[in-house]
């Protein structure tokens, strides 16, 4: 039974474009970077803190602070769709041992 370990590596989702630096947000909004840090500390702007003074701000977090709220789409789900989703998920294990 395999066990997972962790190793450091960059992966595609960590690439530029998904999260901005505080300085980039400051430049975009034409405010001082300390203002952006204030927003973070006041929890007006959500950010991931990488170290004491290093933050990465998701674009969605910035848009949320700016009042963009149409990021959630809601729809109904039929029984047939639900059944199909679970069939697809279960089918992944049809030919392999899940080792669970």
């Amino acid at each position, binding site marked *: 039974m*395999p066990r997972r370990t962790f190793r450091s590596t960059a992966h595609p989702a960590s690439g530029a474009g998904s999260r901005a630096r505080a300085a980039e947000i400051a430049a975009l909004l034409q405010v001082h970077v300390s203002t952006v840090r204030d927003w973070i500390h006041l929890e007006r702007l959500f950010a*991931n803190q990488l170290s004491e003074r290093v933050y990465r701000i998701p674009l969605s977090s910035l848009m949320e602070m700016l009042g963009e709220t149409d990021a959630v789409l809601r729809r109904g789900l039929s029984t047939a769709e639900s059944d199909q989703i679970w069939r697809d998920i*279960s089918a992944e294990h049809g030919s392999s041992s899940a080792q669970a």
Partner: protein
Amino acid sequence: VTRLRQQQLGQRIATGEGAFLRLGHVDIARQTGSPQTIVTTVTHPGWGAPTTAQLSFVETWIFEGGLWALTKYAYDLLLRPGPGRFGFHWHDGRYHEHCLDPADPGRDHHFTGGPVDLFAAFDRFTALLNARVWPT
């Protein structure tokens, strides 16, 4: 076993929405009645930027004895473009994890797992997206 009152289930969904919005556009498809499947898809980072990951949270709940009981789930983080996946599943009576290393996609990606809460899974996925550390 997770059992929630109707109001608690609604609160859980609302809390999830707020958290998921931190990562991108959110799409929620929800069945009515019981059993009730709720599928939440998060496109990261959203807002017109190139998609670098998609998060999927699928849960099915059954209403019994006045409470909603979680009966199965599948929480996944998928890198875009792939390969690359990390997931926590409970279905067909088994808990397990999926971990598809982008650097070694040919390796079996099924692993033994245990119960994982929706928000714990979300936290793990967020950490993976932020920390540049990929479990192998």
